[in-house]
């Protein structure tokens, strides 16, 4: 209110306030709120990248919405991931695992350390990568020394390892899978499985 508002203005304003209060109290319908309360669209200023859901073999396409323009001092963040309607496979839809991909990328509940539960122990402990690799290598070596078969009962060369199995996850990339394959052939592992729900 300006300092120079007159007595007449004051009375007019008071009357208007009074009238609207009376209208509210007597149950006159309140005017619909404008669209101003609607939250701004999360993806309004994002860059959209197309990718493929890493989970199962269906291979649904997803749109990844990121904020940040990749400037040198800016770190991009994924704000939303949803199905790509242009994909003939999923036509914009996603299953619950695909719909949760944003969390898969940047949830603070993701494991970022190696967790280890010793045989017979109840508790999980943190391990460094060096320790973990050391333990894995020692165990694989011990099992392989104990179980490697160079020749079978009929004297044929088989070079196989039947007491170790390997399991892959669907979120492994092509490169990881290539290396896993090499590793498996190198050791002679026969039992090899992929778990699309890992």
């Amino acid at each position, binding site marked *: 209110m300006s300092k120079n508002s007159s007595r007449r203005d004051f009375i007019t304003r008071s009357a208007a306030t009074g009238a609207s209060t*009376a209208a*509210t*109290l*007597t*149950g006159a319908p*309140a005017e*619909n*709120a404008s*669209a101003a*309360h*609607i*939250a*701004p*669209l*999360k993806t*309004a200023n994002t860059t959209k990248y197309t990718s493929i859901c890493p989970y199962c073999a269906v291979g649904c396409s997803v749109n990844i919405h990121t904020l940040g323009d990749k400037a040198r001092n800016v770190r991009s963040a994924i704000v*939303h*991931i*949803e*199905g790509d309607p242009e994909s003939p496979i*999923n036509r*914009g*839809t*996603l*299953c*619950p695992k*695909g*719909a*949760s991909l*944003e*969390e898969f990328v940047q949830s603070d*509940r993701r494991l970022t350390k190696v967790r280890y539960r010793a045989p017979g122990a109840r508790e999980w402990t943190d391990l460094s990568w060096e320790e973990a690799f050391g333990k894995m290598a020692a165990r694989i070596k011990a099992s392989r020394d104990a179980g490697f078969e160079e020749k079978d009962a009929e004297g044929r060369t088989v070079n196989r390892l039947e007491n170790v199995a390997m399991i892959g996850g669907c979120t492994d990339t092509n490169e990881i899978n290539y290396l896993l394959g090499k590793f498996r052939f190198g050791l002679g592992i026969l039992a090899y499985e992929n778990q699309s729900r890992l």
Partner: protein
Amino acid sequence: MIVAKLIDTTLCIGCKACEVACQEWNDQEYTLGTFNGSYQTMPDLAHNFWNLIRFNEVERNGAQSWVMSKYQCMHCAEAGCIAACPAPGAITQMANGTVDFVHENCIGCGYCITGCPFDVPRLSPATKKVYKCSLCSDRTAVGLEPACIKTCPTNCLTFGERDELLRSAEIRTRELKADGHAQAGIYNPAGVGGTNVIYVLNDATQPEQYGLPKDPEIPWTVRLWKGPLKALGAMVFMGSILGAFFHYVIFGPQDPEKHGHPEEEPTHEA
């Protein structure tokens, strides 16, 4: 144009993608649940969980049946929450029929929880405000469909103009009846003026089996409180103000000399 959501419960496979998409789009925080012997994600809706697929285990024709139904705000045409809400502008019905909460105007009284015949709004203990499905009003405002609709992999959920969806629901009901589901029907209760979330049920005679009330109505207490009692209260309020005003005009201010204020009078006792 009134928009609506059509939920064809006969096509729901209980994958819960709509739950996840809702949580993701609305940036809801993660809550740890407990396993209580059901595949249902959570026992109930919550202030940060607006969309629940109920896994109802019911008996039909002597056999065990597992029916899934989506549980969220029904966006009623005559919404009980709006009828009950005392805070101006805290709940709004948009031009497209969406019932949306405006949280800056919410006073956290929780009357909408009483007014809702579907028991949907939930009070947040942290912010002391009430939350529920907004039909993704931010998405629909720019022409996108709600997050749950977009993700649904079985086409169980569809979004669009209400009349058109009602027509397709009728077509679907006829199909179901031809397939031998004689009780199939549409759930669009008249007690709340119809809902903007419409269900196709393969047994519409028992909506309770899907967790839906048979004849939802705005509670009569809310109607009385916000109807006749409110007008009466306003009249009494205005009357008392007017009475005070006329009392002042007719009789003037109270005269302390005349009536006396014993505690202010000095005592002259020796």
